[in-house]
């Protein structure tokens, strides 16, 4: 079973991202489960959402305590919330940022956990460019598909299309495609093993 945790703030589409990923997995014939952790239902408050993907029925209902991958939608959470709690030593970390890990103050963390794979993708910028609003969730799913290979990009695009309509759907797919391309070229097509 593959387990993902997404961290962000209320209003950034954290819950929607987990739901879309679950739909993408479903479209590939997998069993998937997405659910939110409503800490506070306020714009800007720290929010988490979870997604599990498996080949068999998922019965487990606990929050994702030991994720194989993390998506961080908002770097202002980095030093406020214990984001990395439980992350697998061979896990994947995808961060929405234009900055590198040193600039984010994460050098010590990666020295201590050398097998954790990490990528930064400027998802908010890509969303501003394509969607016109800094909602990074769809772009991050594109990046996630390229980074982990857990899901095909076509499934992510189809899931975005199921969630949104018309121009909102096409522009979010464009943002996701751009993020996919960035991560894919950075990794030269080799998905991280998480």
């Amino acid at each position, binding site marked *: 079973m593959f387990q993902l945790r997404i961290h962000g703030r209320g209003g950034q589409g954290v819950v929607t991202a987990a739901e879309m990923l679950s739909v993408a997995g479903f479209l590939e014939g997998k069993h998937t489960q997405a*659910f939110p952790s409503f800490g506070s239902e306020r714009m800007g408050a*720290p929010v988490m959402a979870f997604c599990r993907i498996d080949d068999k029925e998922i*019965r487990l209902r606990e929050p994702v305590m030991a994720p194989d991958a993390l998506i961080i939608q908002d770097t202002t959470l980095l030093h406020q919330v214990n984001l990395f709690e439980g992350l697998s030593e061979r896990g994947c970390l995808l961060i929405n940022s234009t900055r590198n890990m040193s600039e984010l103050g994460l050098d010590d963390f990666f020295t201590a956990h050398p097998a954790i794979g990490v990528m930064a993708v400027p998802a908010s910028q890509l969303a501003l460019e394509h969607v016109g609003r800094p909602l990074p969730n769809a772009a991050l799913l594109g990046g996630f598909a390229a980074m982990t290979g857990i899901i095909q990009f076509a499934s992510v695009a189809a899931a975005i299309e199921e969630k949104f309509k018309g121009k909102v759907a096409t522009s979010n797919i464009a943002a996701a495609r751009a993020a996919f391309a960035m991560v894919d070229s950075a990794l030269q097509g080799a998905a991280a093993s998480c």
Partner: protein
Amino acid sequence: MLKQIEGSRAVAEAVALCRPEVICAYPITPQTHIVENLGQMVKAGEVTNCEFINVESEFAALSVAIGASATGARAYTATASQGLLFMAEAVYNTSGLGLPIVMTIGNRAIGAPINIWNDQQDSMSMRDAGWIQLYAETNQEAVDLHIQAVRLAEELSVPVMVCVDGFILTHAYERVDIPSQVQVDDFVPPYEPRQVLDPAQPVTIGAMVGPEAFTEVRYLAHYRQMQALWLIPELAEEFAEQFGRPSGGLLHPYRSEDADTLVIALGSVNGTIKDVVDGLRDEGVSIGSVSITSFRPFPAKRLRETIRQAKRVVVIEKSLAVGIGGIVSTDVRMALAGAGLPVHTVVAGLGGRAITQASLRETLLKAHRDVLEPLTFLDLRHDVIHREIERLETQRRSGPVAENILRELGSVADHIG
């Protein structure tokens, strides 16, 4: 048709397939998405011959449903938590009048302290109100139970609550098989009421009944629920034949046949329990579980048969009878009276606290080794309560308990579980 949708959406689609004629809607978290979805479906013309009524309170929601049901309409509503308490008087009236309304409960804690998260204290508070109570383990079962509930309610003229864990199920996206209209029409015939308010044939519904007949009317309410003890499994069997999957029934045993330790629970936590049972079985621990689907009527006989060989029982419950302990365990003890089995109560998941595999495993192993106390609270923070008890003992004006504890914990945004 297989779909990957939110639990609330799945419930709304199931309700729509049952051809409701009146839907009374009042929002309360975590049930709101259900009536929102139904409102959209009615407006879009996907549900025909149905009146969607926005009411001004939960009390009105069920009262309007009562009125509609008394005129012979198939009536539905949904609520949660304080909303269920606010409609309490009408809850008793519905069953007392024998009106087969189906109501979804998006299970949520009851305040104070105010809390929007999941536990089952709300529906438990209405366990003796004369409604049948069914608890869904998954969103698939939530869908299937609603379809069975309409049939069950109308055959017996008894209202049914379908209890669906708030957030954990209502807000979870998972795979759900939504049946076709033809399938549901085959299973749920048009409503044929036992009593109707009809100007052409006037009757009174809701007479005042004195000591001469009150006991008899109440007895008959009990009698009808006893009938449900055979009708519920019968409908589940018919449902399995028609829809091709097992769902509903009185209870679901899991690896229980030869189990020394049996875990009993209601609702979605049974999924996590099954995973823990599998893990412990792999280590050679003789353990199994029973998911109780029908809490009212309580399947005492069926439970006795299922539990016959067990050496101990652990009830995991998401509610608390303050001053005594477990609510479900009280009924379990009564059902097992004379069997001489220790019944442990584990209060868990209150106000949305995560019920984790790790904590369940530890507690169940203790029970298996016969070192678990009769009443425990899963993951209770002993340091926190000890400090507050000390404050209570040393200061007269110790202040509000909830606020004291929150102040002590500081920010809660920094941990996951």
